[in-house]
């Protein structure tokens, strides 16, 4: 394979290594190699240019590591399906790289390595990506049955990739809900060798088929044999969460955090479980860690700060809560919605601390900052604010906030129950029922109408309706992503248009910030990446 035309981005925090890698790449025939020292700089580069190869060290000093960079690149569609990501690891970090099932790199190089090995690994990774690109593209669009068919076809055409295709096919069968077939496939693999990914896949299939105890035992045994296999911890945590076993989920998370203490998302899950189970001490510690570690991360989130402030409020740690809120305003204060949320919690802090004057002042600030269609108030905060409004006889604002919560979350039964409970506690049960019923009905009707228009080929009509709905229900992931979907469908037929691209990207960015795991979001991100790729463009 000719590497001379390939564009490479090298990410390493050691200047000497960067220079050596650059020379090694030149010796491999690559003339276009850009170097950066941090994951943040890498993302900037990737947003502005299409690269064929990203060669990144796992350990990037302060800030996100190579694995976080890889996850960010794949989630944000910063890499084309044919582009490869090769991780350079030390022996100590290998497991953290290769056991991240969902986002494994295309290959890895354990230091020290020679430039011959580097060249051969890059060539093979590119060749493999080229062969498997159709499968990855279909996977990104969540077309799982198509992925299975493509894997079967490619296994015949490119038998050297048979094992990799079997792994992808197994994942696709699980995602498509074809559990008995997945189980049979993983069993077939396990008859060859007890490969960890096949053991994990088998356990997931078992759980999905209702054999929860067998799955739990299989995952526990897998972890005993491969204690650094992080994906197995995640699967076991999810199993415990699905069976409402928060205590065991927390215990498994603690073990995973011993293996990989920097994995912020696991600290976050610990915090969320602890919040749910009212284990406020653990919640405070976990969320405190998330806030501290994310100070230099990709996804520094105001939401984590606000959650921590809420925990501190519940623990009556008023001074610390106000301090966290002050930091939130300093760091994210330019965002009106964040200011609104912070002020809403401040309102509660002062109220609980017996300071009604400051509480009213904070309520005024929250309502003022919360005005405007682009302001995103998390449902929990909006609800707390609605309650404060009703308690302070501010009917109009309270009703608007409650409507906003229901319209943006019309399919979230748990949240609707919280809204109902709030109205009941305010002795306004009937008012609450009417409001919920009307808002849910409206959201469902608009969504169905928009999707119906698109199916009948009236893409312009669908766009108009769904974008209007996305404006009035800006946090409704279903509706916002359907608006983006309609725009993408329009561009698939009529070609790329700058204004439509920019709207799609703003919708994607909005839902990414709020519900990055929403299935409709993942589907739309995949569709958009495929659209850009077929037009030879990179995501902005």
């Amino acid at each position: 394979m000719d590497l001379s035309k390939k564009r490479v981005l090298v990410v390493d925090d050691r200047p000497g290594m960067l220079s050596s890698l650059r020379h090694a790449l030149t010796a491999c025939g690559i003339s276009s190699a850009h170097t950066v020292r941090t994951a943040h700089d890498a993302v900037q580069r990737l947003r502005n240019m299409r690269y064929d190869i990203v060669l990144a060290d796992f350990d990037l000093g302060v800030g996100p590591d190579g694995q976080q960079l890889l996850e960010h690149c794949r989630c944000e569609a910063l890499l084309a399906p044919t582009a490869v990501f090769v991780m350079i690891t030390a022996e100590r970090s290998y497991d953290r790289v290769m056991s991240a099932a969902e986002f494994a790199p295309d290959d890895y190089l354990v230091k020290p390595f020679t430039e011959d090995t580097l060249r051969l690994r890059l060539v093979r990774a590119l060749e493999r990506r080229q062969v498997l690109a159709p499968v990855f593209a279909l996977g990104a669009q969540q077309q799982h049955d198509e992925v299975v068919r493509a894997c079967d076809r490619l296994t015949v055409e490119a038998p050297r990739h048979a094992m990799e295709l079997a792994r992808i096919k197994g994942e696709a069968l699980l995602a498509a809900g074809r559990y008995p077939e997945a189980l049979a496939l993983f069993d077939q693999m396990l008859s060859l060798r007890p490969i960890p990914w096949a053991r994990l896949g088998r356990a997931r299939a078992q759980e999905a088929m209702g054999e929860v105890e067998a799955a739990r035992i299989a995952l526990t045994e897998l972890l005993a044999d491969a204690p650094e296999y992080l994906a197995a911890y995640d699967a076991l945590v999810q199993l415990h969460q699905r069976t409402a076993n928060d205590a065991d989920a927390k215990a498994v998370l603690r073990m995973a955090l011993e293996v990989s203490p920097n994995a912020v998302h696991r600290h976050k899950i610990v915090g969320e479980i602890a919040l749910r189970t009212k284990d406020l001490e653990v919640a405070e510690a976990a969320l405190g860690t998330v806030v501290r570690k994310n100070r230099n991360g990709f996804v520094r989130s105001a939401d984590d700060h606000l959650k921590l402030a809420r925990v501190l409020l519940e623990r009556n740690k008023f001074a610390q809560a106000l301090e966290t809120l002050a930091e939130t305003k300093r760091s994210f204060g330019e965002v009106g919605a964040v200011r609104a949320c912070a002020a809403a919690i401040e309102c509660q802090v002062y109220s609980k601390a017996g300071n009604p004057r400051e509480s009213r002042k904070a309520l005024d600030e929250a309502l003022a900052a919360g005005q405007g269609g682009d302001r995103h108030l998390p449902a929990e905060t909006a609800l707390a604010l609605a309650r404060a409004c009703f308690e302070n006889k501010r009917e109009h604002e309270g009703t608007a906030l409650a409507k906003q919560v229901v319209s943006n979350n019309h399919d979230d039964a748990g949240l609707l129950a919280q809204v109902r409970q709030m109205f009941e506690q305010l002795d306004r049960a009937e008012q609450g029922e009417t409001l919920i019923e009307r808002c849910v009905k409206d959201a469902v009707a608009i969504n169905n109408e928009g999707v119906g228009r698109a199916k009948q080929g009236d893409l312009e009509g669908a766009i108009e309706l769904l974008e209007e709905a996305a404006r009035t229900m800006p946090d409704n992931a279903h509706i916002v992503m359907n608006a983006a979907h309609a725009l993408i469908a329009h561009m698939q037929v009529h070609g790329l248009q700058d204004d439509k691209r920019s709207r799609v990207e703003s919708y994607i960015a909005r839902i990414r910030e709020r519900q990055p795991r929403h299935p409709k979001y993942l589907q739309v991100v995949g569709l958009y990446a495929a659209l850009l790729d077929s037009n030879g463009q990179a995501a902005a």
Partner: protein
Amino acid sequence: MNEQALIRAHACEAADWVGELTLLLRRLPGNEPGMRAVRMITARIADRLGQALALERVAAAEPGLRVDAWSALELIEELEHEAVALAGGRLAVQLAATQIVPLTWFFDRELVSLALRNALHAALAHAHAAVALGLELREGYLGFSVSDDRGGFPPELIEETPPNPEVGELNGNALGVHFARLVARRHVAGARHGRLELRNRPDGNGTCFTLWLP
């Protein structure tokens, strides 16, 4: 951080520097014996560091391997490229797959690579004119071999005796051989274990190191 973790951190840091040095040496000009020796010594240091770190991992759990399906031919090709570069034209490097081998085989790529690389570097350091790498499938075992035309392995290395570091036996080739035997033994398929075979040519002018994996 406990002492064990500190030792590991130091070794990893050293591996980082050796990695940088390896790439740096390749881009420096010169193929005279002195420069070839520097490159070879760096490769041997890299071997030992890699083995020390891998041994720590393997010692922590049984079997402690990361077995997956890999292409044995691709691994051997990587070693061939490295051997050609290190030989610097002094030796002939040959690649011999004696028959069609399976597209993939189950093994721990890093450990097998470390074991073979160590054997290869020893062969490159001592061979007179030629080094050969090979793959062979026999009775359900895949053999990865490194052979050369040096004098021969001493009998104490060929016989599998437990290492005894206290009497100073574990140095030089013995370290690499011990590592390779451990890697072979840890590769298990059902009731079958991997094994290391060390042979001398009957005429006393050559050695063959073969790692047989089930």
